[in-house]
């Protein structure tokens, strides 16, 4: 999570930074720089996304296992059922 929020912060900062740079010239906007910045951002976001997906792949399974064992731990009717078999 911390990794994600760090990247979010960086994204925001870079955006604000880009804006400040261009704010003085209200009518002549530097679209070229904006495009480059935007594309870099897109690439970075894409990479982060894929990293998270790949890193989450194994953790996802882990979560599910936890879920299953959690529900399996409760006392079940079955125990009584088996007891009456003998």
């Amino acid at each position, binding site marked *: 999570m911390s990794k994600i929020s760090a990247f979010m912060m960086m994204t925001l900062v870079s955006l604000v930074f880009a804006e400040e740079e261009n704010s003085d010239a209200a009518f002549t906007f530097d679209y070229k720089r904006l495009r480059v910045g935007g594309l870099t951002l897109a690439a970075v976001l894409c990479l982060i*996304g*894929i990293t998270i997906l790949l890193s989450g792949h194994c953790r996802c399974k882990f979560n599910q296992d936890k879920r299953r064992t959690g529900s399996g731990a409760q006392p*079940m009717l079955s125990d009584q059922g088996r007891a009456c078999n003998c």
Partner: protein
Amino acid sequence: MGFNKGKDDYKLAATSDEVGKGGKKGDKNKDFDNLKKEVEMDDHKLNLDDLSRKYGTDVNRGLTSTKAKEILARDGPNLLTPPPTTPEWVKFCKQMFGGFCLLLWIGAILCFIAFIIQMTSEEEKLYDNLYLGLVLATVVFVTGCFSYYQEAKSSKIMEFFKNMVPQQALVIRDGEKKSINTEDVVVGDVVEIKGGDKIPADLRIIGAHSCKVDNSSLTGESEPQTRSPDFTNENPLETRNIAFSSTSCVEGTARGIVINTGDNTVIGRIATLASSLDSGKTPIAIEIEHFIHIITGVAGVLGITFLILAIVLGYTWLEAIVFLISIIVANVPEGLLPTVTVCLTLTAKRMAKKNCLVKNLEAVETLGSTSTICSDKTGTLTQNRMTVAHMWFDDLIHEADTTEDQHGASFDRDSPTWAALSRIAGLCNRAVALADQDHIPIIKREVAGDASETALYKCIEMCCGSVSEMRNKSPKIAEIPFNSTNKYQLSIHKNSTPGETKHLLVMKGAPERILDRCSSIMIQGKEQPLDDKMKESFQNAYIDLGGLGERVLGFCHYNLPDDQFPEGFAFDTDEVNFPTENLCFIGIMSMIDPPRAAVPDAVGKCRSAGIKVIMVTGDHPITAKAIAKGVGIISEGNETVDEIAARLNVPVSEVNPRDAKACVVHGGELKDMTLDQLDDILKHHTEIVFARTSPQQKLIIVEGCQRLGAIVAVTGDGVNDSPALKKADIGVAMGITGSDVSKQAADMILLDDNFASIVTGVEEGRLIFDNLKKSIVYTLSSKIPEMSPFFFFAIANIPLPLGTITILFIDLGTDLVPAISLAYEAPESDIMKRQPRNAKTDKLVNYRLISVAYGQLGTIQATSGFFTYFVIMGENGFWPLHLVGLRSSWYDKQLHDLEDSYGQQWTYEQRKILEFTCHTSYFVSIVVIRWFTLIIAKTRRNSIFQQGMKNHVLIFGLFEETALATFLSYCPGTDVALRMYPVKPFWWFCSIPFALTMFTYEETRKYLLRRKPGGWLEHETYY
């Protein structure tokens, strides 16, 4: 449990119909009704002469080859007609034009109509509608192909199950024995069968030698049945002189006349019945249909309103109709079809990993809605393998280990009595392990022989080591095999044990018969006289074990004195020149087909999930009840009417049936019941066991449950289960032990035969239902922000804030991954603790969901989009009020000096660039607010802070949608190709305040929902 609540007033649809009549088909289909009736046959009553006359055959010489050929030409080959397979192109079309797809096709067609209208009426060529139509068509086509491919993959796995090896049958024709393919067997053929053979057709037995058949796939009886030429029962299924097609001969040999072949066999009738049944729609298909109705309703209402408004505002009819079509098409959730398909596929994959193969994608959810499970016993709940369960020796009942992996408790093996008992069980036993199985665990080895002898063999092998060694040490000298008059089996062995005589007589058989032949009993290795106290103790043990539904055998031995029987004495089993009385009783052993290890746990979980588990078996009531108690289908402390009567010592008729929660119904009783009585049983007993049921009755039981409004799952492995499997909302067959017919009829196959996988299925099914709701809320909430720009464009005459291309990029681009990622969402609460959903009231999409998606989330998103639009327009000089009514001059191609609020002049091309920048910014701000929508859609009741952000796919979705939006906006070339322009950094943040408002609003709503369960808010907004 599930369907009892609030359904007592449910009216029966066809009470007057007689049992065995399919309500739907009525009298139209007499063949079908006929199939549903019990088997009628009289061949078992005929004597041999009549029989051979009837079939024109000779008992000794068989048919002549020419006659056989004639009959084969007349009756056709001895094969089951395979169920009619749907041609591939029909399957493909079903995927293309079923349910949801139809909605999109209609949308596409409407688009083309609108395009044609525009082409003919307007000079300016607008291609938007054409593109939209094409995109819609592509989406359906691609999704259709995808789901077709998915289903083709699972049907490919099905192909593996098909047993393609042609079976051989030994027939007598022209007085000679011939081995021919099973399919060439004809009525009247004389067939010889031996142990291990599959019976090729229905046979009337004319001669047998200790023949036993395994009928478990047909009747569900776990014990092999003796077959002999004697007519023993009116019921053809019960009588001894009929052997049925595709059951197998376990041991012995027999000769019989073929009385039915192919589809006329008992099994063929069942298979035909199964394939002629109509299994109806899956619950999720019904839900999606309901959803389509709602969406069509909403689209219709909005469209008509808009049409009226347009007419009132003075548009021409044609223009108004184009608007109408645009609004209707805008309502079509393009992205939802791929989302739903992918969500279901993902779940199907997850289930396949856990060994549940789903044949039909829609069946994925069905187990989640299931409120009743009707389970077969043999092979499903039990291991279908006789195992020694208890022993009685030294005046004590000992428990043996019956678990599949041998981890259960052991008993005291030190007693010398046990040594004696195990020696008898090993020696007086004809079961032999097949060769080359040393590497396989004992429990899994193949053993040739009677089921109970096999059980004894394995038990001894596991407790005391190699049986064959034991047999080598004490070679058999004489033997009297088991027969029904003696009811015992006896053998005499050489004995090399020091301190004992040279010959040992061992005997096993029906315990009371064995006891009668004994005068002493062994206690702790010492012989004691058999007194009345011991006899009583034996009786108690015998009754106890018999009451558990176990098959009980008694064991005794006798050390033949050396002076009378010296070495080399010729024992004569016909004359019986040795004592068979006054023996020494050792103990008894009892066997049962034990429940599978995972079953009790699974049944318990189903119970706590509010699912009623019913056992429907062909086996005997006592065994069925014992297993039901063993696995928890009848829970401890619950009594049947009989038990209450026995406890209170009153006649059964005096007990109020409502007092008994549990209930065991015999197939014989079921046959005479009216539908009302059956409904009564199903309604008022929570724990039901149906025993001795025929396949037809299984079907009637399933129909009974469905009539009461339950969604029924049937599990089974035998041919006898297949009609019920087909009729059930979801049929679950066993992958390893299941018969081909049952697998054909089922919707889902448990590849590892583990009943516990059903619990997984229920869990996944419920989860996907919840998650689909979330996906739908998320997807639908983008409809209002997509439609409202067009609405205001037409009504308020403002320049268009959002174009078709950008709408498509939201629906099929940025929204797709986030919507799918909701399928990975973890459950909000323990879904296995709540009741199954009520199929009538708990809908996938209801008006509350629509009101939240459209009315609450949608409007806030639309507002944020418009805010961005006005900010950009304002920044460029067009104040909001100036925009109203500006449309005609804005779109005037000749007008190159349109003045804004500051008096700046705009050329047509400049205006267009500004307009498309607005489209892009609107799109971007929608993407931003949809981050929050996604987080909101993650939960229905819980706060996001409780739920957490553990769903990595969802986080990936957030990044991916943002990356795509950024790319579309900033990539050079998109301005020419897609008319999307770079968005200034500040414009990204315009929707943040709205997003935060929406987030706070939703968190408050969910907080109040949690605070006041069942309150007004829940009633109005909990979807």
